[in-house]
């Protein structure tokens, strides 16, 4: 690692033509010093009496104290959700449910700047992404599912859909508000009530979301927000009065949840890890493919389960693609997430930074060749430069394990068959990318790649109407689209 750090010290090419520091003002965000739990429509002190600070990855500033719920807190939250389900929410006319969701969508749009700044502050992602991706998609997700609330019978012909009951939802730290939206919007549209457990490193936008619920006048207890760490999540999973668990996170924890739910009859959906192949054929539009590679792996610092972390380049264009990629990496701006010119922000937590460093070190030890463009990293905070590994063998850990950081492994292939075989040679199956101008090849590759989302001549695109979820150990169930409703409904004959 010492060598890597030395390389980072090289300063960028000086130029009279420099981009301004264009920091987004954080004045718009007003944080409490400490947050309790949002149960039954009210803020309550945690029975656990335990609090931890949520830290800003950009400078390690403690932003606010957040409650860490225990079993008793989770039980109260589930009780509040059950109460709300039984006393009003499940009997409410679906068209009225829809209106609450429309309200939430609108309020998110109106307060999107505030949410975007807080998301970047608490999670470390560039404001450009929270502003242009996370927030618009979050609002759009509520807007989309709002419309479904009173049309469910059209989604499942010959069946009578009814809500499942209380949904326990556990979300990750990479897209905190967006994952909240992916979870809460379909659950409420289907008529369920919710206990949501945000990730411990990024709880603040979920807590701010409670204020959106207040403004929307959502009945108390329909959404309950229980902050805390994995212990709170585990309590939620095993709570006997929870009817459905939805989890987004690591495959390892996903398996634990499957085991915990075994035999209970609870409905379960899992959106887990990935190690996506991004495949570049020699006839691809190369400059756009390079943009796709960049967007595939450096979007959100690579903290993306569907990140295109394994790049497969056809050997006949390998040198050209690599040269273009390295040149393009040199123009990436790493730095303050609140700066509107920043492309790559801060690593979400020190623990994640350690994991990235450990895997990168393993890549170097195993014999891969590392490249990092010259970039100056801020002194405070958690940072890792955009990194690409070449000379990577399929067997290296960096080609097998999910790094969840801005680290790309480059491999080559000669024929479409070889690309398919190598791309599918993983326990994961969340997503894949294909770049080629030949239409029939796109369709053939799309058919043969074992993954839930295939981006052809594009990468990392998301939309509320578009189902998202994995094959194999990347989980089961879909979020988004008509298919995202099914996990929150019982279909009666």
């Amino acid at each position, binding site marked *: 690692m010492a060598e890597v750090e030395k390389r980072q010290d090289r300063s960028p*090419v000086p*130029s*009279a*033509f*420099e*981009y*301004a*520091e264009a920091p987004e003002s954080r004045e718009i965000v007003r944080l409490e010093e400490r947050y309790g739990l949002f149960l039954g429509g009210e803020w309550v002190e945690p029975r656990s009496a335990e609090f931890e600070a949520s830290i800003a990855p950009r400078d390690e500033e403690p932003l606010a104290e957040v409650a860490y719920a225990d079993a008793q807190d989770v039980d109260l939250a589930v009780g509040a959700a059950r109460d709300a389900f039984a006393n009003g929410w499940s009997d409410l006319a679906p068209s009225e449910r829809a209106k609450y969701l429309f309200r939430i969508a609108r309020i998110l749009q109106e307060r999107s700047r505030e949410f975007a700044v807080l998301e970047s502050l608490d999670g470390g992602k560039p404001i450009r992404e929270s502003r242009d991706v996370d927030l618009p998609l979050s609002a759009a997700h509520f807007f989309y599912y709002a419309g479904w609330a009173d049309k469910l019978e059209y989604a499942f012909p010959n069946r009578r859909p009814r809500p499942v009951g209380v949904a326990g939802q556990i979300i990750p730290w990479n897209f905190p508000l967006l994952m909240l939206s992916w979870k809460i919007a379909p659950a409420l549209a289907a008529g369920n009530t919710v206990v949501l457990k945000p990730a411990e490193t990024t709880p603040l936008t979920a807590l701010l979301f409670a204020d959106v619920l207040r403004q929307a006048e959502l009945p108390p207890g329909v959404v309950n927000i229980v902050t805390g760490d994995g212990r709170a999540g585990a309590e939620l999973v095993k709570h006997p009065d929870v009817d459905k668990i939805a989890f987004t996170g690591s495959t390892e924890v996903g398996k634990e949840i499957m085991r915990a739910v075994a035999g209970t009859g609870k409905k379960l959906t899992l959106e887990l890890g990935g190690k996506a192949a991004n495949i570049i054929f020699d006839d691809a539009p190369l*400059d756009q493919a390079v943009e796709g590679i960049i967007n595939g792996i450096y979007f959100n610092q690579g903290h993306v389960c569907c990140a295109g972390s394994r790049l497969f380049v056809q050997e006949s264009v390998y040198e050209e693609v690599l040269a273009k990629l390295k040149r393009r990496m040199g123009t990436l701006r790493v730095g303050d997430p609140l700066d509107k*010119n920043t492309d790559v922000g801060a690593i979400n937590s020190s623990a994640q930074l350690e994991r990235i460093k450990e895997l990168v070190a393993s890549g170097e030890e195993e014999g891969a060749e590392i490249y990092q463009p010259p970039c100056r990293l801020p002194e405070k905070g958690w940072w890792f430069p955009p990194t690409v590994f070449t000379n990577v063998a399929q067997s290296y850990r960096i080609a097998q394990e999910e790094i969840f950081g801005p680290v790309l492994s480059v491999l080559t292939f000669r024929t479409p068959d070889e690309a398919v075989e190598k791309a599918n040679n993983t326990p994961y199956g969340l997503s894949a990318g294909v770049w080629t101008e030949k239409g029939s090849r796109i369709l053939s590759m799309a058919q043969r790649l074992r993954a839930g989302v295939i981006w052809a001549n594009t990468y990392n695109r998301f939309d509320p109407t578009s189902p998202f979820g994995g094959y194999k150990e990347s989980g089961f169930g879909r979020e988004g689209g008509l298919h995202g409703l099914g996990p929150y409904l019982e279909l009666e004959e």
Partner: protein
Amino acid sequence: MAQAPALPSGFELPLEPRLPRIGSVDQVAVEQRAAALATRSIKRESKLFALDLAVRMMDLTTLEGADTPGKVAALSSKALRPDPADLTVPPVAAVCVYPNMVPHALERVRGSAVKVASVATAFPSGQSPTELKVEEAARVAELGADEIDMVIDRGAFLSGHYAKVYDEVRRVKEVCGPAHLKVILETGELGTYDNVRRASLLAIAGGADFIKTSTGKIHPAATLPVTLVMLEAIRDVHEETGRKIGMKPAGGIRHAKQAVQYLVLVNETLGPEWLTPDLFRFGASSLLNDVLMQIRKQKTGAYQSPDYFTVD
């Protein structure tokens, strides 16, 4: 673009010289990239540098049937001293006029750094016999133009006669003498970014010193994504051959903010090396005054009125 397989010695290609690998362009992705770059904000000091540079890169243009010696004289004066109230504002790169106006422009700018550029080759359509077009370019060179802006024959290009397009560029280049050759692709008529890339490489292969988007007579004229595609072609040629080709977006660039966006595009795609009038030009008429207003705004802090800038 190291694509060429090794050929046996003595093997001759049917077409020569061989074009580099052409490749393709994805419309959606290139437009997204251009839009993303357009959101970059630059530093205040850099902004002055950029605006100053934009003036130095400008080909101040009048290409009207109604052009007269008087009009061209006024334009040339403006070119030499864009802002009489602020002598720190540099002269523009060139004035761009019809062939008949070349002597009038030369009269004003001779001895200064401002170049005279003229259009040729049956501008703007290019729909004339090759011999006439070559003859016209030769005459324009004789008239003393420093730079010749030719148009490609879109009729030939769109009907697949790429060799004719290439051949005309090559023959015009031969008669240019010391004058620099800018080749106008008229991208608004080419239909796809694939064609823009193809035409760029064809023009460069034929000997273009610059490639230029538009005549200004067709809408759409220059756009950010079209320019990005052309810059990427230039970059590929540079990486393959070391040749440095210039770029000139023309038409539709009216505001200083747009000009800065173009400069960001150049900086990100080709790097600061290309941020010079030798390798980048704006073809424009109304842009200059907006840039002048922005320069004064940067210097005084007050927003400006067009009443204080001459319309020439």
